[in-house]
């Protein structure tokens, strides 16, 4: 990459846009993260294990601090309460940037404490945690401009959305799914899509009353097709950073998530919304004024400023 193209890339990443999409995405990430934390107190008695030895391998960033304090259930509950308070403050635009940093930190710690005290793992909160950190950094870096606009009574029109925020969130989501595909290839190769394994998982954990569950259990060719499609989508998910592939990969991953959520009921609803917002053209529609999410509670067209005003 020659210096000119590097400069152009950096200049593009640092370009600021109106935060129409950024506000919407921020709302969903913060709101979903707060919702996801309700899982922790609800499952505290069923998911945590107290009486087994510690695992030897690294599980979380809290690995060096494993010990009695982390196994105290009140620590987890305190962290969850902290997430709820800080997320509410963040969504109300209060105490920034502390509320955003604390939401990211407490959310990460709450789930790290849980995983440190589990005998198995789940992957529903990883993407949310990483996105929270990027969004907290965004609010930190644009705080001065936002405060100036607030002091002039133009809080929202003074919040800007640097290109790097969108590109970072998109890349992180794309890599998360990319790793899901690459780890399947590394562990099982192309044989992963044999159809039998998916039928076994569906028999074990699928919703028996859902019609698609029976389709999976009754047809091996259909199951092989679904597995092969999922593998291809995940392996090539990082191509979503290129606009040409983004929408198609987004549609595919959303379809995969609809299948996972409806058949298995696992808590990837938030990830599905993040993929939809990042990979479908919502940002373009919002920034070009073709879609205005404020119309849902402020339908008067006179009150919606044009993006070029």
């Amino acid at each position, binding site marked *: 990459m020659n210096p000119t193209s590097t400069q152009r890339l950096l200049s593009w990443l640092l370009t600021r*846009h109106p935060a129409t999409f950024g506000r919407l995405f921020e709302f969903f990430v913060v709101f979903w993260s707060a919702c996801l934390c309700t899982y922790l107190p609800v499952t505290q008695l069923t998911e945590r294990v107290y009486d087994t030895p510690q695992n030897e391998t690294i599980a*979380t960033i809290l690995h060096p601090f494993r010990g009695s304090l982390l196994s105290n259930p009140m620590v987890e509950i305190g962290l969850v309460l902290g997430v709820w308070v800080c997320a509410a403050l963040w969504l109300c635009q209060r105490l920034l940037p502390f509320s955003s940093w604390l939401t990211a930190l407490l959310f990460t710690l709450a789930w790290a404490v849980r995983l440190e005290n589990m005998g198995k793992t789940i992957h529903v*909160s990883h993407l949310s945690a*990483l996105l929270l*950190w990027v969004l907290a950094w965004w609010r930190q870096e*644009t705080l001065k401009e936002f405060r100036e606009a607030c002091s002039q009574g133009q809080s929202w029109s003074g919040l800007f959305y640097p290109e790097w925020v969108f590109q970072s969130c998109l*890349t992180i989501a794309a890599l998360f*799914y990319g790793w899901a595909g*690459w780890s399947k290839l*590394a562990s099982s190769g192309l044989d992963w899509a044999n159809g039998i394994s998916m039928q076994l998982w569906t028999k074990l954990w699928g919703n028996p009353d859902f019609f698609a569950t029976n389709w999976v259990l009754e047809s091996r060719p259909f199951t092989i097709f679904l597995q092969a499609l999922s593998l291809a989508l995940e392996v090539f998910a990082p191509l979503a950073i290129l606009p040409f592939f983004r929408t198609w990969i987004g549609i595919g991953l959303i379809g995969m998530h609809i299948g996972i959520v409806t058949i298995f009921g696992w808590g990837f609803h938030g990830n599905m919304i993040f993929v939809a917002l990042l990979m479908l053209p919502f940002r373009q529609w919002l920034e070009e004024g073709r879609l205005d999410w404020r119309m849902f509670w402020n339908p008067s067209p006179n009150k919606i400023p044009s993006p070029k005003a």
Partner: protein
Amino acid sequence: MDVYCKSPPGSLRELILPIAVIGLTFGLPLTGVVDCYPFTGAPMFNEEPLVYCEYSAKDGLGNEIPLELLRLQRIDNGNPPGHGHGRKPRKSIDRLGKIPSVDEVEEAVWGGLIENRMAQKVHGSVTIEVQVIGDVDGNRIGILPEKSRKQTVWIQ
């Protein structure tokens, strides 16, 4: 994208955290660390099991015994064990893709009975039914009679 912008562009400092997060998301799994929350190599369902076992257990009088007491309970949730959790799971021989031998089942049952002080309460024996679920006809899965079995562990 032609959009309105009145703010001056930011500084390179803004890219520090995104580059660090993206670098760790991509790079950490390459070092062999499969899971270090919040970073992950996303190993969920990366295996390709072809069978799994369903267990049921009864004592000498025909009463059902909870599988947790015999180390036969389900602990596999599709994530490869050993990664991403700070504690070991409760002991069990459950593992998707594996059919335990007669000796392995007997060892698990004895281990569970001793650990839970149940040996005197099972009325002389524990009968384990191991149903193996796998491919039955190239199109569906079901119980494989030729691989399923019943075995009795005598308690003296």
